[in-house]
């Protein structure tokens, strides 16, 4: 196995560079004192200072965080119940529902976004419900997040099967005690990982947000997108860097939780 390293090593190094190059450009330029160009002119925090004086940018940052936190919280509750329910109990049509649960991961986000746009617009026109804004965005994001939480929680429960609970039942533990002392601890890492992934998924989304946003609920990606159109983006690198840092941090925590499973497992 080791002998492949001579060939695969350089390729892997190149691939990592390729993946991190765009992220580095944004992060480095947010500390670059140059204005309107991308040559390195020395380390400077001025873009962060202008950022915290910029109302539009701050409100976009606030919107992004409110959206990600609220939607992740809702999705974690519903998704955990769903993951647990799907793991344990049967109902007619479960296979079909499973198929639908996998759809958001594979359907291009713009298809989901346009379906939701159409749905919300018709609801507003016909019934007067749901003006586009934070509410529609939260509804849309939770729809993307529920499957990921449910699938992770269910996968977590499947690792252990039901042997621990049966053992506890044989030893005379009551259903409540079994749930509290066995099921919950087994599920907990999955719930945390699922919730954090839901949060990053929301921060990483652009297309669904763009299609369901209203005039008052601009998030960071939408703001950046509009500024790209108008040409001047230098001052938005700091804002993008903050979002990237939060996503990266959550991704690291999730990866640590999920990969520690492998070691307990084997």
């Amino acid at each position, binding site marked *: *196995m080791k002998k*492949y390293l001579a060939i*695969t*090593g350089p*390729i*892997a190094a190149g*691939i990592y560079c390729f*993946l*991190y*190059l*765009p*992220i580095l*450009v*944004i992060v480095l330029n947010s500390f670059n004192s140059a204005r309107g160009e*991308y040559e390195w002119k020395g380390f400077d925090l001025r873009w962060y200072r202008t950022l915290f004086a910029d109302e539009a940018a701050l409100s976009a940052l606030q919107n992004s965080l409110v959206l990600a936190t609220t939607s992740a919280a809702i999705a974690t509750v*519903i998704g955990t*119940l*769903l993951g*647990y*329910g799907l793991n*344990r109990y049967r*109902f007619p049509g479960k296979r079909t*529902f*499973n*198929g639908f649960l*996998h759809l958001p991961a*594979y*359907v*291009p*986000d*713009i*298809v*989901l976004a346009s*379906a*939701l746009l*159409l*749905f919300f617009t018709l609801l507003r026109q016909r019934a007067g419900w749901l003006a586009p804004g934070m509410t529609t965005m939260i*509804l849309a994001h939770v*729809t993307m997040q*529920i*499957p990921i939480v*449910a*699938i*992770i929680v269910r*996968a977590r429960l499947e690792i252990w099967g*039901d042997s621990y609970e049966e053992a506890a039942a*044989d030893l005379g533990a009551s*259903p409540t005690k079994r749930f509290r002392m066995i099921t919950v601890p087994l599920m907990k890492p999955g719930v945390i990982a699922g919730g954090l992934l839901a949060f990053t998924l929301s921060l*990483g989304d*652009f*297309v669904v947000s763009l299609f369901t946003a209203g005039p008052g609920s601009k998030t960071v*990606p939408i703001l950046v*997108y509009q500024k790209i159109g108008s040409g001047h983006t230098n001052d938005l690198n700091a804002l993008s860097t903050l*979002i990237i840092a939060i*996503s*990266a941090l959550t*991704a*690291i925590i*999730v*990866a640590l939780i999920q990969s520690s499973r492998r070691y307990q497992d084997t």
Partner: protein
Amino acid sequence: MKSRNKKFKGWSVEHGVMMGRRGHLWRSMWLSGPGIAWMTLLLVCPLAVITWMSFMDRGPNGEIVARFTFDNFALLGGKGPFGYDPSHLEVFVRSIFVGGVTTCACVLAALPLAFFMVALPNRLQRVALIMIAIPLWTNVLFRTYAWQILLAPDGLLLTPFVKVGLMEPGQHIYPGWRALMIGMVGCYLPFMVVPVYTSVKQIDWTSGDIARDLGADKMTAFTNAILPQIQPGLMAGIIFVFLPATGQFVIPNLLGGGKTFVLGNALEQEFVVTHNWPLGAAYSVFMLAFVAAGLLLHTRMTRNRQEREPMVL
């Protein structure tokens, strides 16, 4: 679990509790109920509405008329108002081409990377995996916009090529096909690496040695004994890249320019710019059918659900 179910029809002992069909239904209602209701209301309903919309007609002023028609699909199929017009068909062909090339490039890059990762000691393997997870969860828009900066004519990346003489000064690859493919591979590669890595990690390397002992040469041993073992991860990765990549919107929009008008661009145009919802809906329905076909095929080719859920990192 199955064998116990047979003792009493419809009854089973699960997790130490004896339960019948009604017990399952009752608990499912409380636990899975909210999730099912949410997904029905906000996923199944919108998809049903968009399917319905794709069969609607438009009046003279572009307003939607509730009259059943196949015109939108006929238009996509090339039946334009002035005779044969393949422009919509070309969008499909172009999209599938972009998705296909992206998938191939990701497979070619992910394989050596996965073999590299499993050769590392355990601690470093976790680091290498986390290093893949970070770009995976970073906003695609930011990364795409960074490629715009990098690939600009006088940008950081092309200047060395110009100095060496590989490229003419002022020659640009952005916007265009090359910039589009670079952005696409950068975006989707992590989605390929994770399932492929998971499969490569589970390879039983002794089967390669056995093949060698039985007289196979190095190459045959690798292609016939090692490679088939990573087929599940490869399949999962292909499906995970090909289906979403075909409908990608942000990257073609920002890096491709006018020549790379794909499904994502078409959907944005019909829904946001020209407001031709029935036509946009017809595009979506085609895309949905495409994804459904891909997923069904994948389900047929895999043995169990675990093989189909590679992204549970």
